[in-house]
């Protein structure tokens, strides 16, 4: 027992590493697409459905994309006919639950494209979870929502 504090920290680190491990592994993405930003706009929105296939709640902490300088999880809210866009710091998904990003609602806000975004190009999105490796998914660039 040289340093009790260090021991606790080490223990916590081990517990975190071993804990409900790789929570992002239970995260599944589907029906993703990215709305092609019209010329003149440097902001794009991507939409998809995230499923938690695990038996424990998981928290998505953020999103990034190598195709854009910045990426955030956003939500559009309508307040008395006004559209407001707000940052979602984290999204919690219950076991068996889902998070749906769709036009006029939650969306992945992607700013400053680093490449041209032609229709049908595939764009990489990475979701960071509280634990586990990020989920990497690819979504096509589209002009409008795919018909289900």
């Amino acid at each position, binding site marked *: 027992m040289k340093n009790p504090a260090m021991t606790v920290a080490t223990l916590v680190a081990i517990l975190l590493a071993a804990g409900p491990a790789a929570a992002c592994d239970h995260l599944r993405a589907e029906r993703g697409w990215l*709305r092609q*930003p*019209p*010329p*003149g*706009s*440097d*902001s*794009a*929105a991507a939409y998809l459905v995230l499923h938690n296939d695990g038996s424990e709640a998981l928290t998505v902490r953020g999103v990034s994309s190598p195709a854009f300088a*910045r990426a*955030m999880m*956003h939500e*559009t809210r*309508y307040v*008395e*006919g*006004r*559209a*407001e*866009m707000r*940052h979602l*710091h984290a999204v919690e998904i219950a076991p068996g639950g889902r998070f749906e990003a769709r*036009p*006029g609602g939650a*969306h992945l*806000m*992607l*700013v400053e494209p680093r490449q041209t975004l032609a229709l049908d190009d595939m764009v990489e999105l990475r979701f960071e979870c509280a634990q586990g490796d990020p989920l990497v998914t690819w979504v096509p660039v589209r*002009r*409008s929502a795919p018909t289900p």
Partner: protein
Amino acid sequence: MNDTKPASHLGIILLGAIVMATAFAAGMWLSSTRHAGEAGGIDGLLWPDPPQLAGFHLVDQHGRPLEAADLRGHWSLMFFGFTHCPDVCPTTLAALARAEDQLRKQPAYGESGRVVFVSVDPERDTPEVIAEYVNYFSPDFIGATASESELRALGRNLGVLFMKVEQADGGYSVDHSAGVFFVSPQLELLSVLTPPYTAADIVRRFTAVSQFLEKQG
């Protein structure tokens, strides 16, 4: 992680304070407490006292002046937004383009009806930027903007709210009224369709409002 809660609450309060301060300081908090009546059983009809479009001075996507008188004699579907708005604006403009395809077949809208996109972000949206932007949705669309004070006057006139909001990444966004404003050939704002809505909702509202106006003779 108990300590994250108070911190995030503080964050929300701070954001709120910044939003309010920005709104009041910029004087952009426009009054929009117009209540839509239900004349003729039509939702959201502004009747019998529809606001009249007063003299405004916008600049269109070709850099030419666009004034209220230019909208006289045909229907205008007005939408307020900005080009850096990635979700609501393209979704709405795409819906308006689809709706307009349908509306062209209605004699009231015909060939002369116009969708008018007004940018509430003149700082970034120059006429050149707006030209490329609206053309992506439809070559028929009119795009326009104006100085902040002109936009503010138009906003007061029609009950349009817009307010600059700082974003977490250091950029800014503009909260804005996201309705479709139905302006008659006599320059009366007859109805506002509030979000969310589809292209079919736009067509339905136009049909109801234009038929109502015809009955008024």
